[in-house]
């Protein structure tokens, strides 16, 4: 890890290697893969009821349709697969197993009850419509507060009051310290159920290989976890399943799950020894891909007259949906929301109780940010309320509570270590960039101009990234390793192949990992090729979600690069008759320090390593020029950022316009600023969508009312502003390379900042904004009720 050898690729705005094929329409997403002649298309029959007994399934008409190969019900396939079971070693957790194809009972609208295999996708779809399922409809539990009341319909008979997980925590002096605060505020914050909605729906293509194996192409972020899940649930060896990830059209956590369709497709491929293809349509995507963020925070703070928080207590409810999803169960939002809410603030006395509640709705999973956007919305909303209560500017309230440089390293009340960060600096820089003080000075005058309320909102946030093995152990996720890996080989020609245990869905790994390799190996970047997303070529890993790759894969790549660079140094030293310490490896050459023309190229070194020339290897040195390394990063690598947003709210129709959106971000050492900014842009846009428009709406019977993109609104170019982004770089000192993750921060910061800006704009008329999405109808009703009250006074 000799920094003096780095070739300066890290930190450069290098254009992406991925782009050209994608721009020419030559990407290869799962639906684009070549289809074998004897392919069978798989399609699913979905339940139209949230809770019902399956009385009978008549498949005869579908079976007799020309072109249909087979129809199977849940009962038919049950012998081929174990129910999907998510083991979590956490007190208070109860698994809610799911049959990949339901039988007996359905528990949410969209749950799959039968499948068709046909020669052609159109025919498969025709056959789906011919399958008659008779149901006996049962009462459903949809709203999570209702669902945990005694007497509510149970989603699973063994889970009392539908509490699938319950967590609790309290710091030792909590009660005394909480009681000591002079003031208290209690607020209820609610976030709407949303989803990742990647532009590419999910799909898979299972191909038989040899007599007993399959190659499983699937649109996923977690190839190793999918392989392990398939092997376990199908009773096969992992060696008989190769998972390959094609180009993936967006993931956002949505594709970081093992889904029942994957289990069914793989099972049928093993059973029939024929290629099986399934690609979902958008309705299936919205109905059955994991949802997230149906959260309720009852938060209470106790604080002094100077605005300093003395203690905080939380009751958190998250909606788990009907089953625990694999591999995260439905605990991650619940534990995350209650543990990450502390953000960058000095809250030493803290108590929470958190609940994950099963309901007759689509299962919840991990969507970008997991619970951080919602918990930071509650935390940051509370800081604003303290300010309004005491008449202290909200920025000042944050300054009085934020973790200072002198507090570092900081350990939160729940025991998470922050090694480095820039909490106050990012905040101050963002406030200055937006002209916060002038905005506040002008605000009494400008608050309502031309029928528009103006406000500014702050979110000063932390982002938990690159979680390692101890973090997953502490959260009880048994099947989650936490480590990642890299296998690096300098080929006989001197070119470099690096296989990493990740799988990108647009993050540009082929470019950024080449930058890291080029620097730490001392290679010419043009000679470095990155391969990912294939269990046959990379060692084991935990793959790509929760802002992991730069941290975990970065560390593994640094280790492998360093190890091979050391060998290059030893071989070169042997040939050049120097000491290995005196050899500098850079830009594809190994030369003697200070004598750049006394050098060997990678090719020359490789020819020695592969016994292709007369020069022999140094004594005791083995053949080859490669290393395979794992990296287990620190428990958590904490990134941070400040978002400050200025909005106008139309007094007439309640529409919100984002006038400015400033971000000052700190993800430690930046690998490629262009890609980092792109991550922030995309995340922030999703945060704005979640703040202003996105919501999956279930009615009281558990029908999803907006399962189309006409009705589930995604932000367009008309809704999203130009972001003003700058960076502070405080490299992590606990992990290799100095990198902190950046995948989720944009979303985590944007949502609370937009909420606070709208709340600020409307604070003059005495309304309380405490939920998202803040659609025009919601804000308009708040504005009208305030006007009516004002009129009555």
């Amino acid at each position, binding site marked *: 890890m000799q920094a003096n050898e780095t070739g300066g690729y890290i930190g450069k705005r290098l254009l992406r290697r991925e782009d050209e094929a994608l721009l020419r329409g030559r990407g290869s997403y799962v639906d684009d893969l070549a289809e074998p002649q004897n392919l069978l298309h798989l399609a699913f029959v979905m339940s139209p009821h949230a809770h019902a007994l399956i009385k009978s399934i008549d498949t005869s008409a579908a079976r007799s349709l020309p072109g249909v190969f087979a129809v199977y019900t849940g009962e038919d396939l049950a012998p081929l697969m174990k129910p999907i079971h998510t083991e979590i070693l956490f007190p208070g957790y109860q698994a809610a197993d799911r049959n990949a194809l339901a039988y007996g009972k359905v528990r949410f609208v969209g749950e799959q009850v039968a499948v068709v295999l046909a020669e052609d996708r159109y025919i498969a779809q025709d056959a789906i419509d011919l399958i008659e399922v008779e149901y006996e409809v049962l009462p459903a539990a949809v709203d999570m507060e209702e669902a945990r009341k005694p007497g509510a319909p149970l989603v699973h008979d063994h889970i009392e009051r539908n509490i699938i997980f319950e967590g609790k925590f309290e710091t030792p002096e909590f009660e005394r310290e909480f009681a000591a605060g002079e003031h208290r505020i209690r607020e209820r914050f609610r976030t709407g159920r949303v989803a990742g909605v990647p532009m*590419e729906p999910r799909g898979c293509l299972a191909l038989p290989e040899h007599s007993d194996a399959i190659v499983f192409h699937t649109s996923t972020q977690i190839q190793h976890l999918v392989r392990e899940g398939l092997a376990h649930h199908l009773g096969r060896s992992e060696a008989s399943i190769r998972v390959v990830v094609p180009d993936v059209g967006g993931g956002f956590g949505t594709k970081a799950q093992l889904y029942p369709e994957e289990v069914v497709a793989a099972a049928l491929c093993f059973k029939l020894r024929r290629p099986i293809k399934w690609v979902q349509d958008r309705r299936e995507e919205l109905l059955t891909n994991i949802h997230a963020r149906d959260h309720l925070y009852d938060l209470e703070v106790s604080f002094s007259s100077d605005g300093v928080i003395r203690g905080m207590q939380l009751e958190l409810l998250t909606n788990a949906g009907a089953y625990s999803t694999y591999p995260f169960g439905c605990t991650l939002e619940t534990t995350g929301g209650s543990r990450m809410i502390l953000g960058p603030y000095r809250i030493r006395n803290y108590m929470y109780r958190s609940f994950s509640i099963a309901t007759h709705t689509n299962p919840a999973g991990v969507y970008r940010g997991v619970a951080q956007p919602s918990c930071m919305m509650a935390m940051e909303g509370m800081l604003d309320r303290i300010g309004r209560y005491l008449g202290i500017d909200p920025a000042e309230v944050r300054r009085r509570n934020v973790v200072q440089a002198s507090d570092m390293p900081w350990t939160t009340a729940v025991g998470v270590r922050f090694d480095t960060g820039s909490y106050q600096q990012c905040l101050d820089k963002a406030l200055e960039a937006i002209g916060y003080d002038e905005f506040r000075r002008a605000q009494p005058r400008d608050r309502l101009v031309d029928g528009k309320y103006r406000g500014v909102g702050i979110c000063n946030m932390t982002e938990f990234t690159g979680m390692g093995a101890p973090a997953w152990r502490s959260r009880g996720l048994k099947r989650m390793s936490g480590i990642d890996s890299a296998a690096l080989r300098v080929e006989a020609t001197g070119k470099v192949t690096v296989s990493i245990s990740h799988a990108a869905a647009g993050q540009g790994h082929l470019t950024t990992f080449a930058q890291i390799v080029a620097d730490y190996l001392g290679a010419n970047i043009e000679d470095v090729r990155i391969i990912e997303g294939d269990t046959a070529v990379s060692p084991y890993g935990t793959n790509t979600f929760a802002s992991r790759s730069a941290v975990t894969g970065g560390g593994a790549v640094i280790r492998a690069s360093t190890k091979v660079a050391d060998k290059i140094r030893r071989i070169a030293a042997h040939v050049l008759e120097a000491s290995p310490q005196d050899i500098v490896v850079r830009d594809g050459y190994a030369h003697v320090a200070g004598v750049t023309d006394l050098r060997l190229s990678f090719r020359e070194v490789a020819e020695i390593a592969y016994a292709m020339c007369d020069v022999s290897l140094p004594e005791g040195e083995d053949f080859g020029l490669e290393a395979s390394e794992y990296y287990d990063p620190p428990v958590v690598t904490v990134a941070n950022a400040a978002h400050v947003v200025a909005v106008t709210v139309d007094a007439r129709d309640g529409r919100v316009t984002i006038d400015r959106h400033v971000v000052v971000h700190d993800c430690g050492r930046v690998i490629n600023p262009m890609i980092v900014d792109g991550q922030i842009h995309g995340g922030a846009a999703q945060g704005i969508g979640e703040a202003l428009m996105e919501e999956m709406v279930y009615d009281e019977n558990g029908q999803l009312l907006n399962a189309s*993109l006409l009705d589930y609104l995604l932000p367009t170019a008309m809704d999203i502003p130009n972001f003003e982004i700058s960076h502070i770089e405080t490299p992590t000192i606990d992990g290799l390379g100095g990198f902190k993750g950046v995948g989720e921060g944009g979303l985590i910061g944007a949502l609370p900042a937009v909420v606070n800006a709208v709340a600020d704009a409307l604070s003059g008329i005495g309304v309380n904004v405490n939920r998202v999405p803040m659609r025009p109808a919601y804000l308009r009703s708040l504005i009208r009720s305030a006007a009516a009250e004002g009129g009555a006074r």
Partner: protein
Amino acid sequence: MDDQRKLSLQVNGKRYERMAEPRMLLADFLRHKLGLKGTHIGCAHGVCGACTVQIDGRAARSCLHFAIDVQDCEITTVEGLAGDDALHPIQQAFHECHALQCGFCTPGFLMTIEEFLRDNPEPSEAQIRTALANNICRCTGYANIVQAVADAARRLREQPAAAADAGGCHAGQ
């Protein structure tokens, strides 16, 4: 369901004849009969714009047309945008402005933008954003796409000098 007809379509300047059902969507015909898989299906109900192609030079959702209905039209897909060598100026601007991440929505955006810039060679940012509202991108937050369109407009105005352009995303910087 054996209602196959011989369909004849003109795509990217070349005429193709294939057997297909009358109900086959243009998007599926392009993808599965012609192997032109750059046209992606994101929603199949006309909202997301990923499947946008051009029909007689006008951007259109290929998931909302039947292949049988456009036999007399000239269809252009993303594969028809550039030759084998240089990227089209809009593609080059996308590359240099980092206007794509996962790339799934990108072909649809390119086809929308190509028509837009033909009609609006010097667009304002507001015009660009209005035009882009035809298509949904979930990765980029649009900012870099807006820049890429402005940058592409400049490149196209400066053609044929565009070929000699040293590059760099200049719009808005």
